[in-house]
């Protein structure tokens, strides 16, 4: 069912994700965090939170700018966004939400689509067709992300 091209794409995406995520994990090992030492970033985060952010960020980087959802993740989590947050002293997401967007509505889809928009990164400003496409891609990438993290956790426990 999946064409050969799509399988090659999904394989290379998985490998790209795994490489970035693993290098982020190793980097975290060397840091040896204590609650106080994280105040440089302006926010104290547990290692679990940083691992979670690294996972989403690594996947978005592996996908690149090709997808609207990955672009939304990159702008929210990227290092530039963090620096921006520090300087501004408030969330930079506030200014993004103020943009007025005209969406084309399709009757009958509205109820469920609203919840979906909140779950898919960048979904708030998409038309229904893009939302459905981006959702499909987002789901496949999320599933890959979970699989890789699961494999890592299983192998660590051995």
């Amino acid at each position, binding site marked *: *069912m999946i064409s050969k091209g799509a399988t090659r794409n999904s394989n290379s995406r*998985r*490998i790209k994700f*795994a490489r970035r995520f*693993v290098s982020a*994990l*190793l980097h*975290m*090992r060397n840091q040896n965090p204590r609650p106080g030492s994280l105040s440089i970033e302006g926010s104290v985060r*547990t*290692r*679990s*939170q940083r*691992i*979670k952010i690294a*996972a*989403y960020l690594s996947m978005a980087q592996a996908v690149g700018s090709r997808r609207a959802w990955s672009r939304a993740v990159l702008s929210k989590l990227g290092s530039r966004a963090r620096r921006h947050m520090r300087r501004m002293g408030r969330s930079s997401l506030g200014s993004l939400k103020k943009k007025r967007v*005209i*969406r*084309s509505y*399709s009757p*009958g*889809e509205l*109820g*469920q*689509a609203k*919840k*979906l928009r909140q*779950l*898919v990164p960048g979904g708030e400003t998409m*038309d*229904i*067709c893009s939302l*459905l*496409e981006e*959702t*499909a891609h*987002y*789901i*496949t990438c*999320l*599933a890959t*992300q*979970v699989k*890789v*993290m*699961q*494999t*890592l*956790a*299983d*192998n*660590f*426990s*051995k």
Partner: protein
Amino acid sequence: MSSRRSRSRQQTGASRNITDEQIADLVSKLQQLIPEIRNRRSDTVSASKVLQETCNYIRSLHREVDDLSDRLSDLLATTDTDSAQAAIIRSLLSQ
């Protein structure tokens, strides 16, 4: 691909050039990706149900990421460098 219906509905500003057919097509593609619906294998699944199950699936995936992050955080703290590297090599080889 004929878009007669969409052209007649086109308005200025919010251009409504999306057909019901396109939406139904995308919804059916989405349907195939969701394990809940794929395993039950009933052909008559409403679009609203697909969207609902999609939301549930995405939420469950997010929860899994949270749990796995917790697990990995604990594991990172308790394994030494050599075991960590061995674990990573094992994971990458078994992919």
